[in-house]
Structure formats: C-alpha cells, structure tokens
C-alpha cells in the first residue's frame, strides 16, 4: 500500500448542487476526523453517511455544511481507506475544504491517480481501469453501457476465455514436442488448424466491433456537402431538432464551416456543414475550401445533397469527383419539385452510394436518413444488444496484431510446417492478448494509460 494519502475534488469545478472531495490512503479517516464535526458528535462509521460540518481545525472557522462517508479498505474505489466529503457545490467551499485537507497532511492527487491506485492495488485490471475513463467521457447511453460492461470485467473475461482456448492449443503442441517417446495422443494438424482458426475467429469477432466501438466513443464524423441553397442548413436543423446539444461555430475558421455535436438514435455524431470545394481565386474562400476538404477527409460518412429540381452542374460534378470512393449518402432533395436531375449519372460515378429521396424543408425523408446512419454504424447488421465492444484504440491494435499472428500460425499449420514454428506465432498472440488486460507486462502501457485520466478519478 502507498504510505501517502491523496485528495482531490472529484466533481466538476463550477457551480453545482453538491461538490465532492475524495481522499484516499492510510490517513484518510484521521484527516476527516480532524476537519469534520458530526452534528450528533458521533464518530464516523464505516459505509455510513454522516451529517455535520467542516471546521478549520487551525482557526476554528466553520467552512461548510456537509455529508461525510468513510469506506474502509479494501472495500472502496482504490481498495484503500477512502473518505468522501459532500459539500455545497460552490467553488469557494470546494477550494477551502481541499486546502484544509491538504494542510492536514494529504497530497493533491495527480490526474488519474485514484484509478491508478485501484489498478495497482489489484482492484481493477488494465482494461477495467481504461473503462473508467470511457465512462467519465461517455457522450451517449450506448457508449456508457459499453464502458460500464467493460468496467464490470466482461471484456476482460472474454479475453481470458480466448487466452484459455489458446493455452489448450499451446499445451498440446508442447507435449507433442517434449514427449516424442510417450504414447500420448499425437496432435493432428487438422485439429490444430481448426483450433487456431477458432481462436482467430473469436479475436476477429471482437475486432469487428472495433469500428462501431470507436464511433460510439469518439462520435461519428459526418460531412455535409452540396452547392449553396441545396438545403444543407435545413438538413442540419432537421437533424438537430430534438437532440440539439452544443452548437459551436469553430473559432478562427472561416465563415462557412459549422460543426454541430448531436446524437442520432443514441449515436454521438459530429456534423459538419462544409463550405464547398469549388475552385476559386478568392483568398478568403480558398481558406474555406481548405477547411472543407480537411473535415471532408476526416469524415466517416459524407452526405452529398443534390437538388432534384435542377440538372447536374459543374460544381456537382466537381464534388462527385472529390467524393471518389468514400462512404456516401446521396440525398436527392426537394422531391416536391419536378425532377430535372440525371440520377443515373450520379449512380454511375458513385456506385457504392445510398440514395435517399427527401424534402428536407418539409420534413420528408429525415427518418430514412437517420435509419441509414444507424445502419452504417452497426455495419448494416441488426443492432447489437451485446455491450461487448472494442472501444479502445490500444485494444484494437493489440487484437489486430494477435489476429495476424494467429492467422500466420494457422497458415503455417496448413503448409504442414513443424510445430515449433507455428508455436512462435501462437504464443505471441497469447502474449498480445495478455497485454490488453495487463497480464503481460509492457512497460510503455502504464504511464500512457494513466496520463489520460482526469483529476479526482
């Protein structure tokens, strides 16, 4: 256990109903007893909320009316003695209390230090600790569910299951190599190949959730493009109508690029209305176009809006060229007008595109657009109820490497190579999977992981 006691404000700094100060370490209770007076003059009990006041034990000044709770080790977030003081959510009160706690011997916690202690004290494994960050940063219900299930250890459990399968294979290979004289059952390549492929399939099915996972975590980037007056603003407004969260005009950018954050069917989305990409000599417009291209290139999905009422012009064609083979939804807007659009020409140039006919200003077709977005995120499959999902870039990279190693091992087995060769790749895969849950040591991971934490966690 650590010999120092750490403290931090655990709630967001700002005005709020309540604010919480968290203290963890050997002296947590001792510090609480110094600064806290219960109204009934009773000692604070384990896992019981006590009402009272925080008083400056140096000056006797009453600081705030609070509720205090003590969680005895190891049944706490960090697996150490933890104390939480719930005060009024004013910056002044929080500051005064934390200053007092520090004065009484606690040290201000570093970002992520509470969770780091939970990990180092063995209460959380690495993927669980990472889930804590995701929980805090969750932007939608779905993201939250996934992070929570990872925190509960379901992801670790899955990885452990896969590793256990792999151990069976490795043991079998080993026995065959080391006991050539014994009349043990000889491993058949048939079994070996199917075993390895089976493990690989499990890794791959986890990996298949990774893109969805990333999107749920970081948000789906959608760029809307189309010539002026085709209905982009109406589309944005229509999509925003119920779920408007934050609207920001990105500072320092040109007049034309607008980014909105919203959720569509519980999927966090970043929607960018681009300025267009038409060639121009105007300097200011040029900057706008660069900006558009940039958000365009970052986009997971492009929504291309065309006007049903007019034939394709040069600007449309230029956009089509630029879209190339990106994932795209073509919205043929203004279906209430007589069609003058050569749809077949767009279909020819954008063979992978999904076409939706809409009259955005009249609220027609919005549902279909939302359906399509949802479909795209869940890979066109039925929406997964399973909360098991790879949401972490580090996990994804390790899974990818493991999958490659397993594939190599399987194809070596198919080529009839000797056991000890394919064992190299199989055991490498085992090691990589171990790194996900922190059962294999890789010294670079730790600091990287905990550097991403926010204060008070």
């Amino acid at each position, binding site marked *: 256990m650590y010999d120092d006691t750490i403290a931090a404000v655990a709630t967001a700094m700002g005005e709020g109903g309540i604010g919480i100060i968290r203290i963890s370490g050997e002296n947590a209770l001792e510090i609480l007893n110094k600064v806290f007076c219960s109204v009934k003059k009773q000692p604070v009990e384990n896992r019981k909320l006590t009402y009272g006041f925080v008083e400056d034990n140096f000056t006797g000044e009453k600081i705030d009316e609070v509720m205090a709770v003590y969680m005895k080790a190891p049944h706490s977030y960090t697996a150490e003695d933890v104390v939480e003081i719930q005060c009024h959510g004013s910056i002044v009160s929080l500051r005064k209390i934390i200053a007092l706690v520090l004065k009484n011997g606690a040290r201000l916690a570093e970002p992520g230090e509470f969770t780091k202690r939970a990990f180092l004290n063995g209460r959380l494994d690495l993927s669980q600790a990472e889930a804590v960050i995701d929980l805090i940063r969750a932007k939608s219900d779905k993201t939250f569910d996934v992070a929570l299930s990872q925190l509960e250890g379901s992801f670790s459990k899955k990885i452990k299951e896969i590793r256990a399968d792999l151990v069976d294979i490795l043991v079998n290979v080993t026995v065959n190599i*080391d006991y050539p004289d014994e009349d043990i059952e000889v491993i058949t390549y048939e079994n070996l190949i199917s075993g390895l492929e089976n493990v690989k399939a499990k890794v791959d099915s986890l990996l298949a959730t990774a893109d969805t996972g990333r999107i749920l975590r970081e948000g789906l980037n959608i760029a809307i493009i189309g010539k002026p007056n085709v209905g982009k603003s109406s589309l944005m407004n229509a999509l925003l109508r119920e779920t408007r969260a934050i609207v920001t005009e990105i500072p320092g950018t040109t007049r034309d690029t607008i980014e909105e954050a919203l959720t569509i069917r519980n999927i966090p989305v970043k929607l960018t209305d681009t300025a267009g990409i038409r060639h121009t000599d105007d300097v200011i417009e040029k900057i706008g176009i660069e900006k558009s291209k940039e958000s365009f290139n970052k986009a997971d999905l492009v929504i291309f809006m065309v006007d049903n009422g007019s034939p394709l012009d040069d600007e449309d064609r230029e956009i089509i060229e630029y879209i190339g083979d990106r994932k795209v939804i073509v919205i043929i807007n203004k279906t209430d007008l007589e069609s003058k659009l050569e749809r077949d020409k767009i279909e020819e140039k954008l063979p992978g595109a999904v076409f939706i006919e809409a009259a955005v200003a009249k609220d027609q077709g919005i549902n279909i657009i939302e359906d399509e977005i949802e479909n795209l995120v869940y890979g066109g499959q039925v929406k997964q109820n399973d909360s098991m999902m790879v949401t972490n870039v580090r996990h994804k990279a390790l899974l990818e490497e493991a999958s490659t190693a397993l594939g190599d091992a399987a194809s070596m087995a198919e080529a009839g190579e000797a056991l000890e*060769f394919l064992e190299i790749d199989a055991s490498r895969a085992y090691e990589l999977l171990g790194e996900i849950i922190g*059962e294999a040591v890789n010294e670079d991971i730790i600091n990287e992981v905990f550097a991403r934490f926010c204060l008070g966690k």
Partner: protein
Amino acid sequence: MKFSPDSVWESRSIEKEEKMEHILMGEYDVIVVGAGHAGCEAALASARMGKKTLMFSINLEAVAMMPCNPSIGGTGKGHLVREIDALGGEMGKNIDKTFIQSKMLNTAKGPAVHSLRAQADKNKYHIEMKRTIENTPNLDMRQGEVTDIIVEDGKVCGVVTKTHTWYKAKAVILATGTFLAGKIFIGDSAFASGPNGLAPSNELAENLKKHGMKLRRFKTGTPARCLGSSLDYSKMEEQRGDEKIVPFSFMNDNIGDNKALCWLTYTNEETHRVIRENFHRSALFGGQIEGIGPRYCPSIEDKVNRFADKKRHQLFVEPEGLDTDEMYIQGMSSSLPEDVQLAFYKTIAGLENIRIVRPAYAIEYDCIDPQDLKLNLEYRTIENLFCAGQFNGSSGYEEAAAQGLMAGINAALKISGKNPFILGRDEAYIGVLIDDLVTKGTNEPYRIMTSRAEYRLVLRQDNADQRLTEKSYEIGLADETRYKKYLDKKESVEKEMVRLTEKTVSPSEVNAFLQAHGTSPVSGRVSFAELLKRPQITYEDLAEIDDETRPGLSYHEVTQLEVQIKYEGYIQKQLQQIARFKKLENRRLSEELNYSEIEGLRLEAAQKLNQIKPASVGQASRISGVSPADINVLLVYLEKKKRGN
C-alpha cells in the same frame, strides 16, 4: 594459521571434551563435494581454468555413476549436453566414447527440437570419466565423506571429513545428489542409504542446517534391473538406433556404430490390477515418503493411479552395458514391495519369466530451495559456497552436469575476482535452466523441456558451439583446439552460405532435378540458396547439380547451414521476440534496492523480491508470486526515480 582444528570444532559447537585432533590435509582453490555428473563437470571446469581443485566422493566407484536410466540426452536434455560440450565440458565427449546406441529424436518435427539421445555403457561411462579426471592437471580426487563445511564471517573456507581431517579452500561446491540424508523405500521397508546401495551422507545434512541452510526433501525412483537372458524379446518390438550416427561433441565427427538394441513392450490390465490391489503396500501411498517426486517421471503405481482410464503404459527395455546381461526397465519405477514388483513385472509380455537382480526403489534426499541461490549458483548467505545438481532441486544427469559446469566456472571466476558467467534465457538452455531454478524456484525435481525455452528456434542443438564456444574461450575454459574448430566451422558455413546465394542455375539446368525431387519447376534463374529453402531439397541433394567448387562439409556444418537457410524467416521472427524480451532484461535492478520501501507493492511481492534480489526487471517478472501489476508498480517506481521525484 587462521583455521586451527580448534576453530573447526568451535564452528560445529561441539563440547570441548569431545574434541579430537583434526589434521589439515591440504589447501585448494576449489573443493567439490560429490563426484556425480554435477561434481565431475564442476571439478573439471575449475581445474581446466587453472584452479587447484579437489573432488570428494564417498566412494570412487560412484564417479559419474548412472544410478538410474542408462542413457544421456533426450528432448531438451540433448540440447544441454551440446551446450555443455560447446562450453568445454566433458559429458558430450564421454558419451561419444561410451555410447552403445544412438538416436536423433523428434526428426519428424523441425530442427529446433531435434534431440539426440544415446544409450550408454554405464560402467564404461564411469571408467572413462574417471580416467579423464585422473589425467587432468590441477585436479585431485579423494574417497572420503565430507561431514561439514567451515564458514567464517559468512564466507566458506574449507571442509571437514569423517576421518578427522580438514581441507582449506577458497571456494566449495556442493553437489551431493541423492546422497544427502538419502533414504530408500521398498514397500514397507525404509532405510538410510545413498543411491544404488552406497552409503548416505547424513552428518553433512545436519551441519548444513546449522550453517543456516534451509533443506527440504525431494524424492525420485528407479525401476528394477533384470537379466536379459530371462526375457522373451520375440514378444517385444525392436528399437534400433539411427543408421547415421550423430556425435554429441562438436569435437567429434565419426564415433562408430550402434552396438546394442532396445525393446518396447506394454503393461496391460492385469498389470494394473496387480498394482491397484497392492496400492496400500506402496511406500508412496502409505505416507512414509514425505519428499516430493517429479510429475513427469512418475512411478508405475502413480501412473496407474492417476491415469486410471489408460489401458496400457509403454516400457522400454534397455541394456545397462556391453559387459553385463543386466537390463533396465524404463518407465516402471516403483516403491512397491519386492513380491509385488515381481508379480506385476511377470504380467508383461516378454517379461513372464523375469529374473530381477536389483529391485526398484524410491529414494528421498535433502536439497535446497534454489531460490536461495544467485544466478551464478552461489549460495546467497554464504559467500564462495556454490551449489549444483540435484542438491539444487533438479533431476537428471544432464541438468546436473550443466549446473556443475556453471558452478565450477563461477567458483573459479569468483576467487579470481572476475565477473560471474551468466547465460541468458535467449542464449542457452543452461540459461533457462538456471534462471528457472533460481528465479521461479521449483516444487518438484526440475527437468528441462524444450518448451521451457521461449526462444528455442535460436537455441538449437546444431548451433550450440556458435552460441557459446567463444564466450567460454574468453573466460579461459574452452581450449585452443575447440576454439579453432569453432572458428573453422563458422567460416566454412559462412563461406558456403555466400557461395549458395551467388551460385545460380537456369531452368534448363535445374528443372529435371526439381521434378525428380517432387517439387515445381522454375521459369527463371534461381540460386542454390533459394532451392535449398524448398522443403523437398536437402543440401545433400544439391550435390547432384553442383560442381567442383562444392566444399566437403562436416555433419555439424551441413546441419547449421541448412537450418539457417531453410528457416531464415522464422529465425528473424524469433530474434525480434528476443529484442522485445531484452528490453526488460536490460532494465537492471540494484541489489541495494529495498522492495519494502516501494509504495504500492504487495507485501508478498516485496518479500519475494527482497529474497531473490533479481538482477533485472525481466528476472523480477518471472518470480512466482510477483504479478504483472507488481511489475507495473516497480516500473512506475523506477520511472519516478529516473525523473528525480
């Protein structure tokens, strides 16, 4: 003189009146206690490195005795013998002189796990090793029982014998094998004994404890020996040696032919019934044996008990030597009473009329916890005291010899004030063996296996000399002849590698050859090296289309050449693994580090780390009881220290 006979008795805390005159009989640099496979290698290595050395044995008939199986090598073990040889040890040369049948195991698998095993003529093996020791300069040999070591100020400085003599030494190597407090079990009879009816060493065990050494009990066993003339070989399967015999030693090219046959037969349900009905009479199940036996080398009653659904177990019948009719029944060790032994052996096809000459027995002995050793095999709390072989909790002749060699080398280096000689897990099976013992410890007699090595593609038996001979030459063990041979081989392999890469042939020159060997034709010019990469083509095959520039390579050279060309890709992969492994291995840890002071480290982990004082973070990560999370704590701590907060 500092060590008077008085101080000898003082250190053994014996009452004044019991004191007897002890005579100083000699002064040595290194004294080796025990003359088994560990003791012989230790003594030879030390003497060859120029140290005046004395080797003790309770009985000189026990020098390099093989009290159990009559063979050297096998999976993993064969690798060890090759490495011992590459370092300038004796085991490889000695078995090459005395083998009677030789076989390369695992040839159906890849080259990294090919393992050589040779049947030995036991008596000849003993005689030849003894002769080598007799002829080695700087080396004395003495029959006598060492009853104590002399320790002053935490440093060993001599040994005491049963015959009231004492010897001064700068370093002592303990290689007591199964002699130390040995106890034999046959049925309900148990008696103090060393292996094979030789006298045990009881006093030494008691005195080592007085010096603060923690001893524990391990157990092993051996099957019966019977007369070959009483067996019916027509009911067994003949086991022949290889046609082309490969020597163990890199110094040898041609060592002669097979001289004997082995036989394979099986137990049956009747055998198992006899054994099962007599479980209660086994010392093993009766609870008399407290020592822990090896899981991978179980007695027959153990096998029948644990694998109840198995209808038969195989056993090999192997000759003990050419000058005897005694046969060894491999796979059938037992601690059952003699009447039961006779009864169950008789149920086996070919053994119906068996005449046993030596019964099977189990033997229990004292050994240390190898976690009390440093990586140079020096006992942590007694300076200059080195330990090797079964005394360290290992099992097997080869494991013992490997440790003996390393203990001998390190004792010699230590008293010369030189750096220890430690082999990494990426350098040798010997490195794996010692790191496993010292770092992870063992709860049963430890046996090497190829799977214990993470990097077995690089740790092959064909390249042991390329991995180790230069290192050994640098510390003054491998001699000039061996070193020259190593350099020659290295050069001729490299030269031939270049020639094969540069020499190309056109499709018209090579396609007929390729088709004849069942592999696809080529459409453009192709190099010999590329051809050799094909599984169907061997180096020997290439002779058919080669010209007069082809050199005459030895067996060892051809093997290494082939492996390096054919498996280049895999070897590269393994080298990358090693590079990753080295990262943690190169994070050195100071012996001064007090792990109890590192915040966040679990109590158990801190205790283990303080006990073992690992040399690197890599070694720390292999200690049982130290979890990856603990290693992370350690890394965080080191990082903080580096940044200076």
